[in-house]
């Protein structure tokens, strides 16, 4: 057994934290190694002095158990528990209500369907009325507008190119 391990065991023994079996083994070891007796004595003495140095008697007078404080605290605790559960229940009810409202709103038919738009378009001073509105939202109209936009963009690009060429000719003095 090395010295560190022996010291640790001796400290545990001095602090009454060594099992009876380990204590018996340690005593047997010390019996075979009398040169370690001084170490064991030194540790035991340190512990004994330490215990005496900080020894204090238990207080003889104990304040009475504060029954009023205990019961008022218990009542408060019960109320705070009720309040806590109440707030949880209120939150659940509000959440549930909001959820139901959201679901109902989702299932309600949209107010921006084609008929409504058609109605609004019809009310404008535009000729064609309902047919015009329906035609406005049709895929054919969309495609037509898309193609027209594309054509315009191409034309605009071509014009830009043409203008660049004209400017170059002007710079060279050809125009």
């Amino acid at each position, binding site marked *: 057994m090395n010295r560190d391990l022996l*010291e640790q065991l001796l400290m545990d023994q001095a602090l009454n934290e060594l099992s009876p079996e380990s204590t018996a083994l340690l005593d047997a070891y010390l019996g075979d190694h009398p040169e370690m007796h001084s170490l064991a004595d030194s540790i035991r003495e*340190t512990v004994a002095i330490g215990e005496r140095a900080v020894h204090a008697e*238990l207080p003889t007078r104990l304040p009475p158990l504060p029954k009023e404080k205990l019961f008022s605290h218990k009542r408060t605790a019960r109320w705070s528990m009720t309040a806590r559960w109440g707030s949880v229940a209120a939150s659940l009810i509000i959440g549930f209500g909001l959820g139901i409202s959201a679901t109902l709103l989702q299932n309600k038919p949209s107010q921006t369907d084609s008929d409504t738009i058609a109605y609004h378009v019809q009310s404008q001073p535009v000729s064609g009325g309902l047919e015009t509105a329906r035609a406005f939202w049709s895929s054919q109209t969309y495609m037509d507008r898309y193609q027209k936009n594309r054509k315009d963009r191409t034309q605009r690009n071509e014009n830009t190119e043409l203008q660049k060429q004209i400017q170059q000719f002007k710079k060279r003095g050809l125009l």
Partner: protein
Amino acid sequence: MLEALYAEHGPHILRYLNRIVGPKSSEDVLQDTFVQALCYIERLSDVNIPRAWLFRVARNLAMNVLRKKKMATHIDLDGLVHPASLEDPRLATMRRAIYKLSDNHRETIMLRWYDQLSYKEISQVQDISIGTVRSRLHNSLGQLRMQMDIELAVDP
């Protein structure tokens, strides 16, 4: 049940609190400890070592008091001296050596010697492993032995 706990552990916890927060606040903290115990009385029956649990509650409350008052731990080891022990100079040397330990080590060794808690109880009070308690106690004892040797060699 609470009254039985109070009668059994109250004096030990009061002594512990006297050391931590001083005699002025210790009684209030003791009462608060048992008020807390009442709140968790159902859970207390599941606790392995009620004494360690009560010490831990008392320790937390005492730390709150110290934090509020911005005080350091009240350790009045000189107040522990009783006339008979004044005759042995080694006790004063030991007290000085204990003062020099780090806060954690001093608290651990005081829980062992002053409050006479076991390794397991100390581990629950300080919320550390039993191995750490053991190691702190061994380190503290080593330091105390060294300090005692030095001081007694200088001033035998």
